């Protein structure tokens, strides 16, 4: 039973354009969402997060949008750079748990020069 779903295994965009990575979830008890970035042979690194009481959080080129009614979140990268090429994982935590994360399968983003 996959509670966090990233339905696009891969995404390819041109440098300078917008990258939009999508994530859907099924558990209504999730109250905090995170995006992690992972390069080959490295562990995931935290990128950006959003609380369920917000609908948008921005950090430089990265913006996360949360649509609670649709149980959907997205990560926007503008402008995309070749160094952004990596696997992006959407993750969520349940209200009351400060440590256990539920991850999606990841989306491989390739930014072409």
């Amino acid at each position: 039973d996959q509670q966090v779903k990233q339905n696009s295994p891969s995404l390819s965009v041109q440098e300078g354009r917008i990258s939009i990575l999508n994530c859907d979830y099924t558990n209504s008890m999730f109250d905090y969402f995170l995006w992690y970035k992972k390069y080959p042979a490295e562990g995931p690194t935290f990128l950006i997060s959003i609380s369920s009481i917000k609908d948008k959080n921005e950090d430089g080129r990265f913006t996360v949008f949360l649509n609670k009614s649709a149980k959907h979140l997205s990560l926007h990268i503008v402008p995309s750079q070749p160094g952004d090429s990596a696997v992006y994982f959407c993750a969520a935590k349940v209200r009351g748990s400060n440590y256990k994360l539920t991850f999606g399968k990841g989306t491989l983003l390739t930014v072409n020069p």
Partner: protein
Amino acid sequence: EAGVTQFPSHSVIEKGQTVTLRCDPISGHDNLYWYRRVMGKEIKFLLHFVKESKQDESGMPNNRFLAERTGGTYSTLKVQPAELEDSGVYFCASSPWTGESYGYTFGSGTRLTVV
């Protein structure tokens, strides 16, 4: 500051053998976590230590997996006997406090292949 160190980085073993993975967290981090990613699937939580105590091992697949954290420092994850479905990448992470999950620092992982 040294990061989370895991070794070996790769391990190939035969079905039925025993393998021990090691994780050295960031010095001073009381919280240590193990996660696993099976090929093409999501990263799944295995367990959580606070110092030397297991706080949550709800994600451990079965009793072939044994995790320990000696003296609240490094941790080992032993798989005995290994099965084919145990293949995957095992990640360790640590954090100074059980606070926001973005406080995690992940290691580079151990890629385990059971043949």
